[in-house]
């Protein structure tokens, strides 16, 4: 009996250690992308996920590999959480032929069907509808679909139409609103009547919850409940995961619109910090934790090096077609 328990404990501990490793990988990835952007290797614009790692990782931890996810332009973390190869993802940001989309998509529009990442969408709200459609397929495949979107998207027509449709059709869809309290430079309260995103699900009779989006375990628990409900034919769920982005909205936005103490408080609740100390509390050794951290570090360094050495796509050689033949 005791053995079984401890066996389960160790199993769950390695599970969360792996999850923590994934969070660290995402953090290192975004740190690298930020540097690469400032160095001019990443072009146009980029939206960093640092600070929100527990949401994507905790949710994907509750999913099967065959389950679908859709995300936003702030989707690097989701892609890595769902299994996209870091090297292929960096290469995409750098516009290289070895990118997960051959350099055609870029930072905002990553697709990785092999890992059931249906897409990342540059249009606010687009990820919700894409997730709704994936849920329609999922309902016939015994799978689940999870749509990630921000607090700003909760004011978009996409959000309302998809909530209603998902409930009417009882689709296996989990709406994950990553509430980082800002839509670009606009604070949540200035744009969101009522200010209660989870509460918007009630009128549709869709179960919802406010979740500590910086707590890996809390996200995983809430996501597991929602995913079970979806898989069991119980229809959609809306999770409002409250979190915070460490960088500005995009590019090198210094985010002057955010009060210093607010930033301070959230930095103290850095999801990596929280996860790390929880793992130590649960009895994992400093050594094992440092080991996965160094692993992630090394993984990223290799990924960046490989991407920088990779060739750009050659417009003359590549025969792009408008339509699938």
């Amino acid at each position, binding site marked *: 009996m005791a053995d079984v328990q401890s066996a389960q404990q160790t199993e769950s501990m390695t599970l969360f250690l792996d999850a923590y490793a994934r969070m660290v990988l995402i953090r290192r990835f975004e740190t690298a992308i930020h540097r690469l952007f400032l160095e001019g290797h990443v072009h146009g614009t980029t939206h960093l996920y640092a600070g929100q790692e527990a949401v994507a990782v905790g949710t994907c931890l509750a999913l099967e590999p065959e389950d*679908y996810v*859709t995300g936003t332009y702030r989707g690097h973390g989701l892609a890595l959480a769902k299994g996209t190869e870091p090297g292929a993802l960096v290469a995409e940001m750098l516009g290289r032929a070895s*990118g*997960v*989309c*051959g350099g*055609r*998509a870029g930072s905002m*529009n990553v*697709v*990785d*069907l*092999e890992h059931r990442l*249906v*897409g990342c*969408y*540059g*249009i606010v709200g*687009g990820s*919700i*509808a*894409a*997730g*709704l*459609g*994936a*849920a*329609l*397929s*999922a309902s*016939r*495949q015994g799978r689940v*679909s999870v749509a990630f979107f921000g607090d700003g998207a909760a004011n978009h*027509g*996409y959000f309302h*139409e*998809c909530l*209603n*449709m998902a409930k*009417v*059709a009882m689709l296996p869809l989990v709406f994950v609103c990553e509430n980082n309290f800002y839509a670009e430079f606009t604070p949540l309260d200035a744009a969101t009547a009522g200010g209660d995103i989870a509460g918007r699900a009630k009128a549709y009779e869709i179960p919802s919850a406010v979740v500590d989006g910086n707590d890996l375990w809390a996200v995983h628990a809430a996501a597991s409940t929602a995913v079970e409900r979806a898989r069991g034919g119980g229809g959609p769920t809306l999770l409002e995961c409250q979190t915070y982005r460490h960088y500005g909205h995009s590019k090198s936005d210094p985010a002057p619109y955010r009060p210093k103490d607010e930033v301070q408080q959230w930095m103290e609740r850095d999801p990596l910090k929280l996860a790390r100390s929880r793992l130590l509390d649960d009895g994992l050794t400093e050594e094992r934790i440092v080991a996965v951290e160094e692993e992630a570090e090394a993984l990223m360094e290799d990924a960046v090096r490989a991407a920088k050495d990779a060739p750009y796509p050659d417009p003359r050689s590549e025969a*792009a*077609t*408008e*339509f*699938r033949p």
Partner: protein
Amino acid sequence: MSELEFRTAVRDAIAEELDRDPSVIFFGEDVAVAGGVFKATPELFERFGPERVFDTPISELALAGMAYGAAVTGLRPVFEIMFGDFMALPMDSLVNQAAKFWYISNEQGSVPLVVRSAVGGGGRFGAIHSQTHATWYQGIPGLKIVFPSSPAEAKGLLKASIRDDNPVVFLEHKRLYSVKGPLPEQEVIPIGQAGIPRRGEDLTIVSIGKSVADALAAAEALGQDGVSAEVVDLRSLRPLDLGTVLESVSRTHRLLAVEEGPMIGGWAAGLLGAVAAEGLHELDDAWILATDETPIPYSPTLEDAFIPDTESILASVRSRAGVVAG
């Protein structure tokens, strides 16, 4: 004698594809239980059940997004946006999701969906239920735009659209639904090949959808004048079968494009431009018959004067200098 009604052709095409391929589904507003406001899709619900054929809330944007997401993950959705005028609402999903996927995913997958709508004027439905949205979408690489002119084409082209691995915007002209015509010769009509329903020597009249019948009637009447007019039925606006038009013009040297819509920003002007760019020196004359540059009026007297028809095509050809018996 076995004839096919246009609305039945639409219904049969969907039914046969639902039968053929379990991944095909069909949904829209009042298309299932009620069988569609134009009675184009009756009995599909009864026959295939709510898993394959279902009604939706009034949420055009979500409909298109749902179709896109489903198409990328294994289904082949056919859905209806009742009137073409409403096709402004789902445009974001069709343009920024469906049309882009094949290319930006680096060909990881494609988006086999079909969106059907009833289009066109002449039904006294007024400015907001009579438009043809083809030109709103023609400039979007990755989207096919198919517009049948007869029951046989409706069936063959719709079946081809449903089997196509790319997103297809499918237009059905309201005033064709009750038209009867011969059964299709081919089960599937390939998308991107224009038809030449009438051969001629002096003039090529190019059109699509409902206007093709008007062009054919006008061509008949022109025969009396001793003018031999060829009629080209484009069938699709993207892909655009420029080759067939150029070949025809290389024989007739005169081109009239007839569009039920405004000239500015219309497909007819674009077609003339593409022909001019490729075959300028084949052309002795080229012109466009389109509508006024205003919204579509409700009043019968105004709408009848507004929409190109057999008479206005005839008048246009007769008044155009340089068209003489061959």
